[in-house]
Each structure stands twice: as structure tokens, then as C-alpha cells.
């Protein structure tokens, strides 16, 4: 018996529970080795309204079981995305969500409006880990009101599914999760990278030109599982787990912790077939345990 791995998440019917995480899969036109049959969906690299050059090198540094990145949301802007990538996505057999960014709630809304209805764009993932210029550089994702305002601004401009990608840099992720659920989010992605720093002992300054970077990879997995679990306990909409998934067992930890699906990021850098390997490993686990569908997988979601 081949288990049924299809899931429905935040308005999208997916053929499996494993998506490609934003910023780790480009626009889906690279990674030629990937066995696409296993890819349930892709979240594109984060985009702003206008083109952005990104940060100066060095942009990456490895850390124990992880890596810091400060890419600075380099990207061609919405118009080029519509022209160069969306037409390709239209032909693909899995949905593409666009990871959208802005320096104000209205800029987020504007990006969504421009992409709404463009063939090939299946939905949005709002990245609220961007600096909130209106509030003086704080992050939208740290403040429940700002997070809700961004979500509403996007919600008003599109009928497509809206997912919100939560930042882990908060004391209580449940508060933010409830705020964006209330503002109309269809699903949550948990979590984005953790802010970290690494010092160069030759130059006596940070190794990254941006000083700090976002930590991803297996190092953050236990933290991400906890945050995704806390988010799942706080809301009724589905939660998509992200952070440090390298193998099927890692993805299954997120699913058991209450997530409906997962995203794989850094693992793809190490293993271009990571998504297929994770998908196949989940199928193998389900078959071995005798679960016919993901609904049968036991979840640990105490409400206390």
C-alpha cells in the first residue's frame, strides 16, 4: 500500500507535505538534479516591489551544523519576476508561492496586488522578518499589531492563499500567530532564520559584511520544532514547519509536533535531492507504520 501523502494547506491542495523554502531554491529554475515528482510546492526567493542589489560579500559563513546568511533580499523586483519567472511557473505541476517583502504595510499590499492574478502565481508567503522602516527598523514580525497590519494589507489585495512566515525572534510566538490568524492568514510558516553573528579573528570584525546574518540548518531544528509546535497550539489554521530539516525523520518531528506540511531549505545546498529524499522517507515511514494518509499520523498537540 502506497500511503497518500497529499495535504491541503491554507487554500492549496498539495501532492505531498514537502515544499522548498524561500531563498534556498532560487526561482525554481536551478537545482537540475531535483526529482520534481516529490516537490509539493515552492516558495520563491523573497521579492520586493523594486529590484534590490543585496548585501556586499561575504554573505555566508558556516557555523556548527548551520550557516549564517545575509543575502539582503537580492532580487529583480516584481516586474522582472512577472516577466521572467511566472510564465515558467505556469507550466509546472506544483504551485509556486511568492515570498513577499516590503518596508511598509502598504508596500506589501502593493506587491501582492501586482502579482494577484498573474498566471503561475499560486499564492503568497508574507515575510514579516523585514525591517519595518515606518517603525524605525524594528521588525514587523516582532509586534503583533504590525504583523497583523501587514497581513491585512495583503489580504485586502488578493484572493489567493496568504501564508505568513513567522520570525523566531520573539518571546511568545503564539501572540504573533494569533494576531496574523485574526488578520486573515490562511496558513503560517514557522520559522524564519535566527539572528546570529560570527567574528573574524584576523580582522577583528564580523565575518559577514552585514555584521549579522540569519542562522539556518540543523543547528536550529530543536528551536524551530518548538516554535512551530507553539504556533500550532495557538491557532486553528495550518502551520508549515521550517528549520533544519535534512532527513525524513526531521520532517516527521515537525508533523508530529502539529504541522500540516514542511519546508526544506539549507538541506538543498548540501543535497540537491534533499526534498525528494525527505518525501520518500516520509512515505517509507508511513508504509512501515501502516498509516494510509497523513491524517492518521499521531500528533502531539496538548492544548494546556
Amino acid at each position, binding site marked *: 500500500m502506497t500511503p497518500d501523502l497529499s495535504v491541503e494547506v491554507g487554500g492549496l491542495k498539495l501532492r505531498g507535505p514537502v515544499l522548498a523554502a524561500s531563498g534556498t531554491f532560487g526561482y525554481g529554475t536551478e537545482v537540475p538534479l531535483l526529482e520534481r515528482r516529490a516537490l509539493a510546492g515552492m516558495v520563491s526567493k523573497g521579492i520586493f516591489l523594486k529590484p534590490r542589489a543585496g548585501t*556586499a560579500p*561575504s554573505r555566508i559563513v558556516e557555523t556548527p551544523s548551520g550557516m549564517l546568511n545575509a543575502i539582503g533580499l537580492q532580487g529583480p523586483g516584481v516586474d522582472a519576476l512577472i516577466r521572467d519567472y511566472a510564465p515558467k511557473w505556469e507550466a509546472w505541476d506544483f504551485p509556486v508561492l511568492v515570498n513577499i517583502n516590503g518596508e511598509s504595510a502598504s508596500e506589501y499590499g502593493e506587491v501582492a496586488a501586482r502579482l494577484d492574478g498573474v498566471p503561475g502565481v499560486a499564492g503568497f508567503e508574507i515575510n514579516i522578518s523585514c525591517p519595518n522602516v515606518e517603525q524605525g527598523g524594528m521588525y514587523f514580525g516582532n509586534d503583533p499589531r504590525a504583523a497583523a497590519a501587514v497581513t491585512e494589507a495583503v489580504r485586502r489585495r488578493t484572493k489567493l492563499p496568504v501564508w505568513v512566515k513567522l520570525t523566531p525572534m520573539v518571546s511568545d510566538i503564539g501572540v504573533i500567530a494569533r494576531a496574523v490568524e485574526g488578520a486573515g492568514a490562511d496558513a503560517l510558516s514557522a520559522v524564519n532564520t535566527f539572528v546570529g553573528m*560570527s567574528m573574524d579573528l584576523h580582522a577583528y570584525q564580523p565575518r559577514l559584511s552585514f555584521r549579522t546574518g540569519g542562522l539556518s540548518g540543523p543547528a536550529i531544528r530543536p528551536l524551530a520544532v518548538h516554535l512551530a509546535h507553539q504556533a500550532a497550539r495557538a491557532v486553528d489554521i495550518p502551520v508549515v514547519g521550517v528549520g533544519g530539516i535534512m532527513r525524513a525523520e526531521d520532517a516527521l518531528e515537525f508533523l508530529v509536533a502539529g504541522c500540516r506540511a514542511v519546508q526544506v531549505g539549507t538541506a538543498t545546498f548540501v543535497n540537491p535531492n534533499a526534498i525528494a529524499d525527505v518525501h520518500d522517507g516520509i512515505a517509507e515511514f508511513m508504509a512501515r507504520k501502516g498509516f494510509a494518509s497523513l491524517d492518521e499520523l499521531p500528533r502531539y498537540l496538548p492544548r494546556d
Partner: protein
Amino acid sequence: MFLTDAPLVERRQVARDMWVLGFAAPDIAASVKAGQFVNIGMRPGPLLRRPFSVYRAGDDRIEVLLKAVGVGTAQMLAMREGDVASCLGPLGRGFDLTLSAKTVSLVSGGLGVAPMPLAARDARAAGLQVTWVHGARTADELCSETEGDEVILATDDGSAGFAGTVVAAAPDADLVLACGPNRMLAAAAQRWPQAQVAVETYMGCGTGVCLGCAVPLTRGGYDRACTEGPVYVASDVDWPALPSHLSYAVSA
């Protein structure tokens, strides 16, 4: 692009602290072009793969040239024959030898000699006359292997060949291919703006998806060293904006 678990089949020393490792990787060996690289991963080992120029290829195997500079390279040098590493490649765009030219200088500093044996092979196949120019800090750091071609040597301390930099020691040629520390390449760019140079950056994926390997361009913006590079026309690179040393070390 191929992904393969490649057993170590060869290991030889070619200079002080400098080694060649050979891996059985038939598909990569059959398709690699000069200036391309492979991304090598180890389990257990550091999280990210490590990029290495392909030094030689043939007989179902690829060779890479390295020194121990950190955990990854130290671990690779501790491998024994039969131990397996994961090889992803060939990656990147190599040297362009289709340009009309009669002579080519292969200018390398230290480990920058890594892409040159393949470059010599491909250049000869394209009918070019090849001159090697290879430099290092001191005589025993010079790579002892060449493909039987004439070699002009240079050392910073004058202990062998020309006393001075490899860029100063090199003759002009229709085509200059250069590889070495980014600082050396910046000097090469001054002398030969049209040289093809293979740059080094910190890489996340090696396959174009992470945007980690940014190379600042004179026309503004950034390219991906792993995809549009690692070989660039020297004058296209904004050298002051490219980190010239990458001395980061990962610890457990």
C-alpha cells in the same frame, strides 16, 4: 551536473603541505571543462560542501589539489583510499577557449594552479601554444607537476625562478588565464583587463540557488560565482569590493 559518492583512489604530494586527491567519479570526469569545480561533502563532517577546482580528469577519475586550511580540508587529507566523499559537479562556467588566439599564458599563484592542468589540456586541444607561469611564496611551495609544458617560475623570496610576483614574471600572450588569491587576481586585472580569472568566494550551494557567492561587478550589482563564474573577464569584477581573504574557520 552529477551527484556521486566517490571513493578516494589516489593521493600524492606535489609541494610542501600540498596534495592531489583522486576520486573515482566517471560522469564528472567525462564532462568537466577547465575552470569548472566540484562541490565535495563529507558525512560526518562540516555541514556545507567545499568547492574545489578540478585539477585533472580522465580514466574515470577526477583530481583536486588542496592544502589543509580548516576543518573540511583537514578531514579530506585524513581520508584513506577507499573512503568516500560526495561529489557534486561539474559546476560553474569554465574558461572560454573558443576565442581567436594563438598563445595562452596560464598564470597561477599557489593553490591557484589547480585549474591549470585542465586549462592546458583544453587549450592544446584548441590549437593554442601554452606557457605556464606559476608562483608561490617560496621554492618548496611550488607545485611540482606540469603537463610537460615550459614553466616560468616565480617566488616572493627569490628561492626559485623570478624573484617577485607571478603577475610581474608572466609574459604577455593573446589569452591570459589566471587563478590564485583574489589579491593576485586584482593585480592581474590591472595588467590584463581581458584576462580570464577564476575567483574564490564563500559558497553556500554551488548550484545558483542561495546567492551566497556574490561577486561584485564593475557595472554594478552582483553575479553568482558558482553559476555566472567562477571564471570572469578580469575587468568585469569590482576588485576592491571582493573580499581578498576568506580566513574563516568552522569549529565543532
